């Protein structure tokens, strides 16, 4: 978890420490089991071959969790308590993909303008695969002391 001092030191333009994940069919299967999402698009290669994707793909929420992990690493509990994500799913992540979640602090507001005395932080975030294709992009926002 990040200290209050570390969080307070962030400024606009700062890059967040990237998270890299190797996506496997086993991970996708485990996520399907845990989430209860039984859509065979994610777990059955024969079924998935007949879809517009031509093969199994990861659950969007599984890939989105990598962004949440990125934000948790950067902002700790602040993200878990105050975090909000607004993203667009732009491409499918497949087994075998190497997914990189990255982010940048886009803006930090002033605490004196806020009724709760916390500073609003907005980060631009995204996930890309090993080919540089954007899988998810959007904004993550939270409030910090």
């Amino acid at each position: 978890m990040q200290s209050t001092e570390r969080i307070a030191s962030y400024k606009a333009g700062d890059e967040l420490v990237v998270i890299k994940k190797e996506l496997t069919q086993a991970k996708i299967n485990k996520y399907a089991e845990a989430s209860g999402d039984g859509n065979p698009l994610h777990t059955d290669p024969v079924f998935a071959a007949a879809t517009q994707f031509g093969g199994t793909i990861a659950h969007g929420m599984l890939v989105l969790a990598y962004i949440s992990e990125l934000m948790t690493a950067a902002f700790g509990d602040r993200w878990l308590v105050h975090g909000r994500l607004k993203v667009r799913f732009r491409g499918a992540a497949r087994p075998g993909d190497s997914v990189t979640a990255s982010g940048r602090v886009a803006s930090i507001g002033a605490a004196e303008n806020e009724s709760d005395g916390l500073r609003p932080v907005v980060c631009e975030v995204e996930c890309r695969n090993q080919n540089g294709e954007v899988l998810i992009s959007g904004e993550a926002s939270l409030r910090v002391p």
Partner: protein
Amino acid sequence: LRLAFTAAALLSLALFAACSDDPGIAQTDPRYPPIAGLIATAVDNYASRGPYGLYPYVTGEVTVKCTEEEFAAAVGRRPDAAPLRSIEKVSIRGDEATVTLNLITAAGDDQAVWKLERLPNASWAVLEVPGSESCTP
């Protein structure tokens, strides 16, 4: 005459029962996979951006009828957009599919029924979701 009415009533009941017991198409039906693909991506974007995330997946008929803002205002009156738990059932009649979804919400799982329309290129698009029927020009 009474017999004829009774027979007609029984036939109607039987037809109603047959329709309401519709088990939907099997996952092995070749029409199922493209629908499952559309639902997975459309629901992800719906969960993340609400009705605005769903709008790119609606039919041309809907986009002619409602702007993105009108669609969002109509659908936005429903409970929060949520990630997919499972596809409960897919029924197809002609070029229209009725999909029963279980969505994950903060208050527990919520069931919703979406209508899809088959496009000329054999892909599918969203024709109606709860709330969207109130979006009229």
